């Protein structure tokens, strides 16, 4: 984690977006700044702080800060701690936002305004953006912004809808106005404290005023907050925020004052845990009454989402539908991608031929055709499959279905030492482990979060897809199994299942050894189902495709070039004793050196080289094989990798080198192997130690080797070849 203090703060004027999870902050951030941060219909999708620039009008530009969503300034999970640390840094440092934009889900006023009421204590002008008004207006009876503004004491309240892009221009104008107005915060909390509460908190309040120089209003608010739970106190004691350095005397005094206040309140029959919430909600009730929100309970009115959930989270049908959806997704990856993959293959072949025809023979032409077009082309073929995978994942998330999956699987996940909230990061792992590991920040309990991180790379990510697809395409026949499933699609499903099931089993084992700190609970909001917005789905697919192509462009191109040299040199003439010079190239020597270790798994030296290069990124396996075969072919044509693999023969025995069994063994190796350096760098960041990434590399490598060994040797014993 990067502490807030270590991050470079923007100079100049800036504003911050704050609100509940899933209130639409990031959607608004994207509209204000023109940036493309990921939005979705899952509470807690934003887990870090992000800055962007917004042009308000001709004269005025500001920086906008997007923060993770939170229900309260008292942190519970890691992503919420980012918010509370940010606020401490405003209070203790020189730099603070000029305006806070409190993004409120207008269909959920009371709970959302709770956070707003806490923000009002900060003595920074607050603009309330009543988001999702399109949904509220459908149901009739929106509150009047003017009345709400007066009752709350905010700078401004306005209606908007980030989804429909309403009211964003008005919001920009209001920000430009408010930013230039002088700050006139009220000196006291808007609600009265009763005698005993006041007298029991006055010493804490005085401490905050005297030692930290907080305003009277914020001192009272913080006194109310620090007695609710330990995390607020911890925020001071273990702060990574610069400027919050308590000396021993202050620590002792703060702890003593807090303990005294808590025990005195308890002895007078007042519950410190619920005090702040009780007072604020009571006040909010009166505010909403003034603003004209009808106090009608609509609890018994079933929403469409509720009706849909009768089937979608049904105890029996729910899981069946979920498994059905996943199977359909993986089958489609094969079924739909065939045609565009053919186009890309043909495109690269034509491009290669064109270069062969235009450029004179020589090293440059060889490098271009064998190294770059061969290597990079072999990877880019898999772009359509990755796009289909991302499309499905985005639809599942944006519709609100993922939260239901968490709900349905919480019981099962708890059994293996994980958490309902582990499901979403793990499913994200099907696309890429890195955002998945980041998404574990919403898991409150450290043990459950750590175990999720440890097993997450076992979820087959999209970088393994090219390897699976290559091997399946070359060695698994395209025929129906059990009259229903396509053998190729089924093999793919099995690979994904293997990784997933192993992840769950290992989670159970790991959780025996990792000490549990604190209690775990599963308090999660169920967002309403929404029709995914085409623009945000398309944006997400394009974003991930771009990443894949850029990766192919950078890492894979670099490795392909280096590899081409290693494979092509030293240049030896083809002689009778030396019919295949590639064996004596540098790469050939490296490959042959490790061959004895991987021979029991059914791998030859070519795959050996691929295993080394794929430590940078898994899909490099494919480009590595492509480069080797292209060099071997001598650059007469761009080699079709699938055919080359099917036809490759052992030079001594003349037998086919690769068989379906070797392909299976290799795929199983890729299900388990620790191969992506970036993943381990992220784990180091999230766990703050090298211990865990090294542990993961160790267990994953051992697992990959053993599993492959079992598949290959076991398969041979059973008489497969």
């Amino acid at each position, binding site marked *: 984690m990067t502490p807030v203090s270590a991050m470079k703060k923007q100079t100049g004027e800036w504003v911050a977006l704050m609100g509940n999870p899933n209130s639409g902050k990031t959607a608004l951030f994207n509209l204000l700044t023109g940036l493309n941060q990921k939005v979705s219909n899952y509470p807690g999708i934003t887990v870090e702080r992000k800055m962007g620039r917004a042009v308000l009008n001709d004269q005025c530009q500001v920086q906008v800060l997007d923060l993770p969503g939170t229900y309260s300034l008292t942190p519970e999970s890691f992503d919420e701690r980012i918010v509370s640390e940010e606020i401490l840094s405003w209070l203790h440092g020189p730099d603070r936002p000029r305006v806070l934009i409190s993004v409120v889900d207008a*269909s959920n006023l009371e709970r959302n305004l709770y956070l707003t009421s806490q923000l009002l204590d900060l003595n920074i002008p607050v603009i309330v953006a009543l988001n999702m008004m399109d949904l509220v207006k459908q149901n009739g009876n929106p509150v009047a912004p003017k009345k709400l503004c007066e009752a709350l004491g905010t700078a401004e309240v306005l209606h908007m809808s980030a989804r429909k892009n309403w009211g964003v221009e008005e919001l920009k104008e209001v920000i430009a106005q408010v930013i230039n107005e002088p700050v006139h915060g009220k000196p006291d909390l808007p609600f009265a404290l009763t005698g005993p509460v006041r007298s029991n908190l006055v010493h804490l309040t005085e401490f905050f005023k005297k030692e930290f120089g907080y305003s009277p209003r914020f001192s009272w608010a913080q006194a109310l907050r620090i007695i609710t739970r330990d995390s607020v106190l911890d925020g001071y004691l273990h702060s990574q925020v610069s400027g919050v350095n308590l000396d021993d005397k202050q620590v002792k005094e703060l702890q003593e004052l807090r303990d005294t206040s808590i025990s005195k309140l308890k002895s007078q029959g007042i519950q410190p845990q619920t005090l702040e919430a009780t007072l604020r909600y009571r006040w909010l009730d009166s505010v909403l009454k003034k603003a004209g929100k009808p106090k009608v309970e*609509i*609890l018994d009115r079933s929403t469409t989402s509720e009706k849909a*959930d009768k089937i979608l989270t049904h*105890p029996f049908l729910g899981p069946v539908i979920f498994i059905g959806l996943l199977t359909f997704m993986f089958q489609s990856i094969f079924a739909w991608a065939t045609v565009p993959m053919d186009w890309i293959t043909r495109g690269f072949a034509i491009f290669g031929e064109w270069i062969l025809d235009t450029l004179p023979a020589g090293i440059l032409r060889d490098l271009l055709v064998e190294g770059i077009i061969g290597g990079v082309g072999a990877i880019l073929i898999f772009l359509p499959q990755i796009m289909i995978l991302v499309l499905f994942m985005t639809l599942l998330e944006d519709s609100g279905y993922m939260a239901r999956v968490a709900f349905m699987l*919480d019981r099962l996940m708890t059994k293996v030492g994980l958490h309902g909230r582990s499901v979403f990061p793990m499913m994200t792992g099907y696309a890429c482990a890195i955002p998945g590991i980041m998404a574990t920040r919403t898991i409150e309990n450290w043990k459950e979060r750590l175990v999720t991180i440890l097993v997450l790379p076992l979820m087959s990510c999209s970088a393994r897809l090219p390897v699976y697809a290559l091997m399946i395409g070359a060695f698994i026949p395209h025929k129906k199994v059990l009259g229903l499933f396509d053998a190729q699609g089924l093999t793919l499903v099995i690979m994904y299942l293997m990784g997933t099931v192993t992840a769950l089993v290992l989670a159970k084992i790991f959780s025996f050894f990792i000490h549990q700190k604190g209690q775990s609970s599963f308090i999660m909001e169920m967002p309403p189902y929404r029709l995914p917005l085409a623009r945000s789905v398309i944006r997400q697919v394009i974003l991930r495709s771009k990443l894949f192509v850029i990766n192919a462009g950078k890492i894979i191109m670099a490795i392909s070039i280096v590899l081409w040299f290693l494979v092509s040199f030293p240049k030896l003439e083809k002689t009778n004793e030396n019919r295949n010079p590639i064996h004596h190239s540098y790469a050939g020597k490296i490959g042959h050196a490790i061959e004895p270790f991987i021979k029991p798994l059914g791998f030859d030296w070519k795959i050996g080289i691929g295993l080394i290069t794929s430590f940078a990124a898994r899909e490099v396996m494919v480009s590595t094989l492509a480069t080797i075969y292209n060099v071997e072919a001598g650059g007469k044509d761009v080699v079709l990798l699938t055919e080359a693999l099917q036809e490759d023969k052992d030079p001594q025995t003349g037998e086919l080198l690769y068989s379906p069994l070797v392909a299976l063994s290799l795929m199983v190796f890729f299900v388990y192997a620790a191969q992506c350096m970036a993943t381990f760098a992220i784990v180091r960041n999230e766990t703050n130690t090298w211990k865990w990434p090294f542990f993961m590399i160790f267990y994953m490598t051992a697992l990959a080797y053993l599993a492959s060994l079992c598949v290959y040797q076991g398969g041979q014993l059973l008489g497969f070849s």
Partner: protein
Amino acid sequence: MSEQVTIASLETGEIATIEGYLNEQISQSRLVEMGLLPGTPVRMIKKTPMNGPVEIKVRDFYLSLRMRDALNILVKK
């Protein structure tokens, strides 16, 4: 003293009013911050088999809870 009824004992579709909390638990603070305070009406939306999590509707939103938390919230039918 009348029997103490918790959210967990509500039937699907049943509405009740929150009375308070049975024991002090860490989850309690978050629940009250989300507005599950004494006097607030709740409706049971869904229960899952084998004491899995429950889904309730409170104020204007749907919330899932584990059984252990549901057993800690006292209600009056």
